[in-house]
């Protein structure tokens, strides 16, 4: 029982990472109705920017804020320069465009900052919480920040006119134009927000997985899995999904005998796929009605 609780808590801690990423994934999905495969690399690059600012002497919170702002702007630029030209192209071509972005960011980061692992500071410290080994202050901080971001996003989308306009633009761009919404700007705003959220996610994750160009590969996959599990139309669901993925991964690794350790990722994904077979839109997603 003690072991179970320990693994669940450890899973929650990992899950906070995935939940963060899942939030960014759903955010961009809500804005542009597509999955951004380069989301992780964007987050990684933003984190490197923060690291560089701190290396140049800026204090943590200044670097944090600057990285988020720069990421927002970069997100808007990526939308204009990369996404806009392929918007009318077939979906598979758009996916290849995202793959290209992935490649560019990953390679550039490696070239600029090399592949040696760097440590990244945390404002929460690494002291243990509740005195035991279950969870430390940084992990608690991650969970806290993720939930706060979630709450702010929820308020933004449900409670503001701009949020409503963004939801409308993503759901039905043509109708959105017919009520005077500048859909192009909404998409750009969505990209900017997703990039900023990704930056925050990256800066929270880096103290745990350490900063290097490939740090986000696994995390993004788990983030996707969490978002899909929770339902791509529901930010709350995505966060819950992220936590669930963390717990599932940990429990599978610990408790499934013989194969657990080596095939953790595969088993976690397999479980998610099984869930999707019964709930094809995710646990919290809206049921989709298809019309001919």
């Amino acid at each position: 029982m003690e072991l179970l609780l320990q693994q669940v808590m450890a899973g929650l801690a990992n899950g906070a990472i995935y939940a963060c990423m899942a939030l960014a994934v759903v955010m961009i999905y809500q804005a542009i109705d597509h999955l951004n495969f380069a989301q992780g690399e964007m987050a990684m690059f933003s984190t490197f920017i923060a690291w560089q600012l701190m290396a140049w002497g800026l204090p943590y919170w200044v670097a944090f804020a600057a990285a988020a702002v720069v990421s927002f702007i970069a997100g808007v630029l990526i939308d204009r320069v990369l996404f806009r030209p392929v918007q009318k192209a077939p979906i598979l071509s758009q996916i290849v465009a995202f793959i290209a972005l992935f490649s560019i960011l990953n390679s550039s980061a490696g070239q600029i900052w090399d592949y040696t692992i760097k440590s990244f500071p945390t404002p929460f410290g690494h002291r243990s919480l509740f005195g035991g080994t279950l969870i430390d202050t940084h992990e608690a901080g991650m969970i806290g920040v993720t939930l706060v971001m979630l709450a702010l996003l929820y308020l933004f989308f449900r409670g503001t006119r701009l949020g409503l306009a963004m939801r409308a633009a993503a759901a039905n761009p043509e109708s959105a134009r017919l009520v005077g919404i500048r859909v192009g700007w909404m998409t750009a705003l969505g990209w900017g927000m997703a990039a900023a959220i990704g930056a925050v996610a990256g800066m929270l994750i880096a103290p745990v997985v350490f900063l290097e160009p490939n740090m986000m590969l696994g995390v993004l996959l788990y983030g996707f899995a969490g978002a899909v599990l929770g339902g791509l139309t529901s930010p709350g669901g995505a966060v819950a999904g992220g936590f669930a993925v963390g717990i599932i991964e940990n429990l599978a690794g610990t408790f499934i005998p013989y194969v657990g350790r080596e095939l953790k990722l595969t088993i976690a994904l397999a479980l998610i796929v099984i869930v999707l077979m019964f709930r094809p839109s995710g646990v919290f997603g809206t049921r989709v009605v298809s019309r001919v």
Partner: protein
Amino acid sequence: MLLEVTGLDAFYGQNQALYGVGFGLDEGHVRTLLGANGAGKTTVLRAICGMVRVAGDIYFDGKRISGWATEDVVRLGVAHVPEGRGTFLRLSVEENLQLGAMTRKRGREIADDIERVYANFPRLKERRAQQAGTLSGGEQQMLAVGRALMLRPRLLLLDEPSFGLAPLIVEELFSILRRINAETGVAMLIVEQNAALALELADHAYLLETGHVVLDAPAAVIAADEAVRRSYLGY
């Protein structure tokens, strides 16, 4: 003239859909575009809203709007209720109406207008928090019209408002449209296949056939002329 169209050609890719179409509409008046499927009626409305490639002139309130982006035309006061209604199915009825007023600033007036829409369409008020996708066809059409009215438009474009609706609902809708035109003075351009109903509401009609205007006459005249009605409108 509020809306003036001359020599309008419209294209879908390489295919031409309209050939030198011309017509006009005065402030506060109701006119209708009639014709069979594929005649180009919907294309005319889409051309006005910048949704298809055009050549020729479209003037709204003295401004040349041919080639303008949809959002910019809408911001001049043109509300379009498209084919298929264009409702935001995932959003609630109330959110759909709020979206209609997206380009307006005064919160107090917007709230009043929402109440006015509910007064005109009581069934929408009952369902204000429901997802728009769960409404019946007739209710969605009313929602679409309501949303268009939230713009406080000077020109209302309606594309086949009677499509797929039961006759009683259609009559109800058209009588509401008549009342709205009388009360607010909003001009209306209605594309309809149901010619009889449209001719009752409009004061002037245009008949399109494969992208050309073949008839341009007051509604009463067309309605009275049995020969024209039989050969062109089928009744």
